[in-house]
């Protein structure tokens, strides 16, 4: 508690009483103001997409108010959801993402555990190296990578380019470093005594990882999973470069390559496809957020 002392000799200055709550009110007003601006800014594109997806091509090109649907129609949705091609894209995306998430977690969780806990020669350097890997942009990598796969194809006869499963090799180069980094942070926050207790209880490193660290760091694993899924679901550059046949495409590239024919943009279906494509990550967020609770380690040690 701060005490206010008034020096009678000093020039009188107005002392504000109860300013704590007034400050708080103003702080709240400002935060609402900026939050509303932020919400408008980030929600306008999807709303515009939704509006456009409910219009026919004729209405989209007509010179009416673009923010209102005069003749709502589901023809874009019906068209896409009955198109084998679109369902193929969706299926490819789903398979790639699920595999990539699985591969990523299988690599990055043990890697993070090793880097965070099993102090070995060079582990600190390696941990930093993992993060630096993530900082190299894919725009710098896709040409050398393409060349590498071409050379591998020439030497071994294993053709990876223009197959969807090439993405299972490419995406983890983006997801594994970052997920490992996230998990190193989570594992490092687990008190050292917890694994020492496990070791004394007779647990091996693997048992310490599976029975103590993974359950305790579960929020971190959820965060890493969400990240890996989002990256592999939304990745555009690698599939654009490495896959070309329509039956090998994932959704973001598929929408662009099949719904834009020359200079003809099928806006209604593009917007519909993008909205449908945004649905799975949203559903996954909504589902996993329930498990994404902080403070799961409460009670392990004296807080």
């Amino acid at each position, binding site marked *: 508690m701060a005490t206010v002392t008034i020096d009678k000799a000093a020039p009188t200055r107005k002392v504000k009483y109860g300013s704590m709550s007034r400050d708080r009110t103003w702080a709240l007003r400002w935060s609402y103001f900026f939050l509303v601006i932020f919400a408008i800014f980030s929600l306008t594109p999807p709303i515009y997409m939704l509006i456009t997806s409910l219009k026919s091509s004729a209405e989209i090109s007509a010179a009416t108010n673009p923010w209102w649907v005069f003749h709502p129609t589901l023809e874009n949705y019906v068209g896409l959801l009955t198109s084998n091609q679109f369902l193929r894209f969706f299926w490819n995306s789903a398979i790639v993402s699920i595999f990539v998430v699985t591969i990523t977690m299988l690599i990055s969780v043990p890697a993070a555990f090793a880097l965070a806990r099993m102090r070995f020669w060079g582990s600190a350097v390696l941990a930093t190296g993992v993060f630096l890997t993530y900082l190299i942009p894919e725009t710098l990598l896709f040409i050398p990578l393409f060349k590498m796969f071409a050379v591998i194809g020439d030497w071994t006869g294993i053709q990876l380019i223009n197959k969807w499963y090439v993405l299972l090799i490419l995406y983890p180069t983006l997801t594994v470093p970052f997920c490992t980094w996230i998990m190193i942070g989570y594992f490092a926050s687990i008190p050292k005594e917890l694994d020492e207790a496990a070791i004394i209880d007779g647990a091996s490193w693997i048992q310490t990882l599976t029975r103590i660290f993974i359950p305790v760091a579960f929020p971190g694993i959820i965060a890493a999973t969400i990240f890996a899924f989002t990256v592999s679901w939304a990745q555009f550059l690698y599939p654009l470069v490495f896959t070309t046949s329509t039956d090998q495409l994932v959704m973001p590239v598929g929408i662009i390559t099949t719904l834009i024919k020359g200079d003809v943009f099928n806006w209604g279906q593009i917007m519909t496809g993008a909205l449908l494509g945004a649905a799975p990550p949203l559903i996954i967020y909504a589902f996993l957020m329930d498990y994404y609770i902080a403070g799961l380690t409460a*009670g392990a040690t004296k807080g």
Partner: protein
Amino acid sequence: MADVTLRKVVKRYDEVEAVRGIDLDIADHEFVVLVGPSGCGKSTTLRMIAGLEDISDGDIMIGGDVVNDVPPKDRDIAMVFQNYALYPHMTVAENMSFGLRLKRYPKAEIKSRIDEAARMLDIVELVDRKPKQLSGGQRQRVAMGRAIVRNPKVFLFDEPLSNLDAKLRVQMRIEIKKVHQKVRTTTVYVTHDQVEAMTLADRVVVMNHGRIEQIGTPNELYHKPATKFVASFIGSPAMNFIPCRLEDIAGKLHVRLTDRLAFPLPLARAVRYQNIPRTEKLLLGLRPEHVTEAKPHPQPGVETFDTVLDVTEPMGMETLIYFTMEGSQVCGRVNPNADAHDGAPLRLAVDLNNMHLLNEVTGVVL
């Protein structure tokens, strides 16, 4: 159960020697407390016994077997940590049974052991709770329960009570003593609290700067400290040290404190200190309880003098008094009914039968 032996154990971190060659024999069933100020190497020693730290040199034996390179899980030890280190995602019962489940004990055996430990620690109704639903004292009980169910050769405690408040600490101290009386497992207990060390231990090991200063029963350490460090570390309020030297006055050996103040030594002490050079710079060590108000009837070895008190601290059962003698502050304990007041004169008595004489330079008790 087993005895624990340390032979010339050394721990080096790069250039720093945290533990500098420790020899220690802990008998079966014994409760040994390692005590010392922070950074004295007591926790490192415990962690080396546990196997959580490698030893740089020397040997550690548990039950007669050298365990230098044996991993912690094969040493058959259980450890209780300062911050409990309970598994937060497991219930109390799961926490306690984790080690047994890893060793694939039969379910019935696990259950009976948990029940027994829970009953012993009075946490029967808590077994289905998660650690975050428990108070600090309850968590500490669970941590002890986790150690007890393993039925190990050795219990290791690493400052288990430091996180508890003072009242709970006293209570848990008694609990730990009760548990040890029941299970009789060899115990090594680390603390920086000398009261805990005194109250719990069969034998106390006082450590300082990575070395053992003295090993002994609580009473030995209190009444016969070997060094100034032990003398000042054990006991609260701490022992007083007053600069002095020996002097022969009229054929009797005296200890001279100030120009005007010299006490004749009791016969036993005079014989013991006879050969100390009279020029040697010494310290007179006196426990506060041996500095009291003067009684009307003089007793042998008890000498009286007058002083002016600086500060008094009434504690209820006694009053602590502080006064200055030759620049050093001296603490005494007087009867609450004695006429002791801040800044007031008082006639005091020192019991020289219980005095200590220390070499001022080396700190060795003579």
